[in-house]
């Protein structure tokens, strides 16, 4: 089992550009969450996808959007990039265990905005 995979590993963009990050969940997982982790901070919840629909959203502007495909993989899109968008973007897939959804994180995509 490959676990949660993300691509690309690193990405450099300039202000105003748009970016798409990709995530493949762990085999059998149908729910994907995206997080932004700024340097030296904990992950901040962006949104969660289930059955190709955005189910929950954190406190992020509409510049952040996503998509989930029928095979449960997911994309995170960020438009009009700002310097402050530089961060590690983490994808997590969820597994129901003991009545709770446990998260399994991918290695992340390091986005640098210049």
């Amino acid at each position: 089992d490959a676990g949660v995979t993300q691509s690309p590993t690193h990405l450099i963009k300039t202000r105003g550009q748009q970016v798409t990050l990709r995530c493949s969940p762990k085999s059998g997982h149908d729910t994907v969450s995206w997080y932004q982790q700024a340097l030296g901070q904990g992950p901040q919840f962006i949104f969660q996808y289930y059955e190709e629909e955005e189910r929950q959203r954190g406190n992020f502007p509409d510049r952040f959007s996503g998509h989930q495909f029928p095979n449960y993989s997911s994309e995170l899109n960020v438009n009009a990039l700002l310097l402050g968008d530089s961060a590690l973007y983490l994808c997590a897939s969820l597994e129901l265990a003991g009545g709770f959804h446990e998260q399994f994180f991918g290695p992340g995509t390091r986005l640098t905005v210049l």
Partner: protein
Amino acid sequence: QQQVKQSPQSLIVQKGGISIINCAYENTAFDYFPWYQQFPGKGPALLIAIRPDVSEKKEGRFTISFNKSAKQFSLHIMDSQPGDSATYFCAARPPGNQFYFGTGTSLTVIP
């Protein structure tokens, strides 16, 4: 507004010692409290988790202590090893699957 407050920011412990990291929360709706371990260049990995109906949970050298009335929980790492050197995050989740993370503790275990 930080939903989960974590301390200390950094911690240095001798090999064989006990590492203690503390977290506090305000939202009484939180019903699941996991701890994650993150190594450089990797995503966080679930270490141990607890529900509020239990005051302590132990898995190997890792123990969570939970104080519901004080709205605090802590991670204890017994017999700390250099391989435990990593950043540790506490988290909390209300019903609905959105996780709130603490700001992290950088642990260094010196031989």
